[in-house]
């Protein structure tokens, strides 16, 4: 196993920086996501206005992969409408499930493509998808 393909600089940077790890001033949606088997727990905060995710942030505890994945997701969805957010979710989950493998199709994921190699690590898939499933639950009533 090549660790540099898993813990890329991008993942390490997102994990360390914590720039999306904070509370929002007036979130309209706060939803917890948990991985009971490993104890990872995030709380996703969204400020949604007229179907647009104006701001997003998270708090919680988890491994580098779940923390980086959450942070990258937040960068992607900030300022987007919920339909676009759902497209990001579908593409990201498709990448992790190896249903979408063409890099052109994955391009919209931007930095989150760095998590593509997690699809080869069954033990860590749950870490990568935690925040995306949480987001999907959070916006399902906003569409």
């Amino acid at each position, binding site marked *: 196993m090549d660790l540099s393909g*898993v*813990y890329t600089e991008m993942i390490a940077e997102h994990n360390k920086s914590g720039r999306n790890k904070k509370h929002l001033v007036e979130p309209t949606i706060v939803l917890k996501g948990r991985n009971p088997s*490993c104890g*990872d727990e995030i709380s996703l905060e969204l400020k949604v206005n007229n179907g647009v995710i104006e701001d997003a942030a998270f708090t919680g*505890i988890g491994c580098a*992969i779940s*923390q980086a994945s959450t942070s990258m997701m937040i960068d992607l969805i900030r300022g987007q409408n919920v339909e676009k957010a759902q497209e990001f979710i579908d593409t990201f989950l498709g990448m992790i499930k190896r249903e979408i493998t063409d890099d052109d199709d994955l391009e919209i994921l931007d930095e989150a493509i760095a998590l593509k190699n997690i699809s080869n690590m069954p*033990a860590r898939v749950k870490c990568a998808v935690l925040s995306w499933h949480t987001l999907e639950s959070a916006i399902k009533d906003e569409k």
Partner: protein
Amino acid sequence: MPNEYIKDFPILQKPMNGKSLVYLDNGATTQKPLAVIQAVDDYYTTFNANPHRGAYDLSVKATEIYEGARETVQKFIGAANSYEVIFTKNATESLNLLAYSYGMNFIEAGDEIVISIAEHHSNLVPWQQVAKAKGATLKYIYLDSVGRITQQEIAAKITDKTKIVAVTQVSNVLGIINPIADIVKKAHSVGAIVIVDGAQSVPHFKVDVQALDIDFLVFSGHKMLSPMGIGVLYGKEALLDKMPPFLCGGDMIDYVWEQETAFAPLPAKFEAGTQNVGGAAGLAAAIEYIGKIGFDKIEAIEADLIQYAIPKLKALPYITLYGSDDLSVKTGVIAFNVADIHPHDVSTILDADGVAIRAGHHCAHPLMQYLGVNATCRASLYFYNTREDIDKLIDSLSRVRGVLGYGS
């Protein structure tokens, strides 16, 4: 010094991620020696039939193997009678059997069930459910600052209202040996029964149920070289006799009428349906294998490895160790964390070097809450581990922070 036992374990000869396997997750399950694998193989290639049923030779032979395994377990744990040994799936099933058959029938509103905060969920959740269902109180024995159960806590928590004390002999997270004799003395003085979770102790040192005067002992075969799916419940005859069956079905009855059933005597009363005879054969082979090595030797190897590992871990400034390292109460289970790095990342990075450790909450959420951590890493040893394994663990740990962009 080369370890003379590695050669007996086929899986330890195989590479992991291109490196030789350093298996340090023995608290979760141990590897299996060829003697055990062959015993299971022999059973299925030569003796397989349903025991206790057929009047033909093969079934008789299967019965002999199954009941022979029971006698092997009886001698291994020092039980007075072989029928006090009940075969189950694992320690978890043994504890559920006790919770449902003993707890649900003999616990009443206002009674107290006492467990320790260091229990595995398997010795916690069943008692929590019994307490909820019966209106009883679940009380916790807490630990001192280095993870030990104190005499004061035993005296304070076990009271005249206590009916059951269920406690692990060795913590699956901290590796600390609990003072079972003191707990038994106090519990029996108030008329409570004592259930000992031996999952992490029975594989590592001699546990004698009569010498300890414990009422019930549970353990899993797979944590002591055996196949998965075979476990043991030991109980004193008088207690097992008064308990109703847990599972009902074939082979646990004397006679069945349309509206009534006469249950079989021990041990069949608690062994409904076809049992894991191959697993029992494997467990017997494991006990024989352990007997050939001897617990003196096993304890000496593990103590040497702990004494070797602890100072090396302490020398790494970014490592936090949990629990006492006093060898008089410490087995080969080491819980630790690496500063700034989540245990799952530690485990993934070590895996790339072929080093297998456990990361997470170790099925002990309340203990994690008590320790004030979300999760830990855990290295757990057995007699086939070596100082070289410890060196590889330390070497790999020293790379972990760098991989995630932290300075050492």
